[in-house]
């Protein structure tokens, strides 16, 4: 009758304390990953936008130079800034919907 003998180390990984530690560690990991991604993407957006603004401020002739008749480099880059905002947002939302939500849901369902 091995069951319920107090102190029997049947599965040390499932004591409540260890489960709590596991949960904390998993949360810490997913949390730091979430903020790392957020910060990297934010920095990308800042660099892209201020790169565009600084080019306008420092090199107007370059931004006004024509790529083809009717399209200047500045207009193309401006449209690309808008496009990059969409792309960065999509990257984050896809990651969060697929990876982050799942991990958080797993942690939530644990006791």
């Amino acid at each position, binding site marked *: 009758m091995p069951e319920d003998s107090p102190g029997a180390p049947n599965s040390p990984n499932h004591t409540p304390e260890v489960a709590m530690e596991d949960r904390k560690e998993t949360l810490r990991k997913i949390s730091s990953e979430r903020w790392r991604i957020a910060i990297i993407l934010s920095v990308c*957006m800042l660099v892209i*936008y201020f790169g565009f603004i600084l080019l306008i*401020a420092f090199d107007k002739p370059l931004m006004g130079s024509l790529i083809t008749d*009717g399209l200047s480099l500045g*207009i193309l880059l401006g449209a690309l800034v*808008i496009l990059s905002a969409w792309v960065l947002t999509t990257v984050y939302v896809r990651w969060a919907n697929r990876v982050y939500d799942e991990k*958080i849901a797993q942690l939530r369902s644990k006791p």
Partner: protein
Amino acid sequence: MNPVQTSAPATALGNVSTEAIVFFFVFIAISLGITYWAARRTKSTVQYYAAGHGITGFQNGLALSGDYMSAASFLGIAGLVSLSGFDGLIYSTGWLVGWPLIVFLIAEPLRNLGKYTFADVVAFRLRATPARIAAAIGTLATVSLYLIAQMVGAGNLIKLMFGLPYEVAVVIVGCVMLLYVLFGGMLATTWVQIIKAVLLLGGALILAIMTLWSFGMNPIALFQAAVHKYPAQNVLAPGKLVSNPWDAISLGLALMLGTAGLPHILMRFYTVPDSKAARTSVFYATGFIGFFYLLTFILGFGAMVHVGQSVISSIDKGGNMAAPLLAESLGGTAFLGFIAAVAFATILAVVAGLTLSGAAALSHDLWVNVVRKGEVPESEQLKVARVASVALAIVAMILGIAFKGQNVAYMVGLAFAIAASANFPALILSIFWKKFTTGGALWSMLFGTIATIVLIYFSPTVQVDILKNASAPFPLKNPGIVTIPLSFVIGIVASLLTKEKSAEEKFAIVEERVHFGADTH
């Protein structure tokens, strides 16, 4: 390609056209119908401030776009593009790039930590009274400046389009908007925003398609036509808007980070059921707003080619009537009437959203949590919220009339600068920094608000453009580059000087709640 109507400015603008009135009354009738429907459901504060958390991510995405795409961006950017070409793109991009930052850093924590206002998040682990007072000051400063700019814009615009006297226009906007907010709360306001966003995006899209039709749907052919029409003015290259690089960076910072600190935008994240829906709503909002700014760029060039700069600036020096004139030139008086009604609806919706967020700061932050320390029956909370809405609407109308004829363009920039310097740093520090304290929040927000107002006063925007002085003591038009970093520094230094044990301990709860929301542990 035949440049139409370049002779005398023969336009129906300013005469009350039957079409405009019909479209306008249809919009008013539908929006008041929605308000009636919403009023019957608005019986609690969670309904009044947050539409019962029952708005979906997609709907909130549209409503966020509706809140954000003001008449200033629709008419103002199209006008700026029509008169100076490329430069309009500087504003368009600046007003969009804050949105990705909102979804990366703010939307989900805000939804998970707060209840109705962004002050809920700042005050979460701080001493409620000082933190909420400071946040309410930041909110009310942002909201009132934005309201003045919108009200003055509304008065001028409606006068130009419908020929109504300025004061009458301001009072109409104030009263109709108050009906939405007072009776329908956030639910009615949200649906007004959604309808307005659909109308505005639809109207701009139809107008852009009509513009591009004669150019084989090719924007580059349209740009070519603009170059041929105005060969002396390099319309595809950056013009006068950005000359001093520091000015450009400062404006860019304020536009970008200010977007992430606008109280009426932040409040919208409480209308959705959870943080995932908050995230989804920014995804859609970024898509709609970016698309809208691309359209306004086309409309500006369309007006430049089809209407002509001399006609546009003869009707309004700032070019604000470029898009309506383009509508008239391509689609006749009926289409002009439709676009005029859309512009009116745009103003109403933005003003309603602003008033509701100001009312939330007055009632939820100041009355309920500061004066009554949170012990307030639901019925009293609702009553106070409604009294605050009426008061704000009256103040908005008075300010709108008081600022008649003033140049208020700088006030939108000022509102963004305060949002970026007072609200944004405190919000970020309270979510991410364990050692943030009540003292840090208080000093950072007060400094952000006051320094921004003082520096704008001493900037060329006020000293040279408005007071007509030869020079200004503070060299930059927008103080963002000074005030935003300093607000962060002051928030950090003041926190380090005023250690707050309870705030540090409660950060563990923040770290949980940021991911799980209020419903666990």
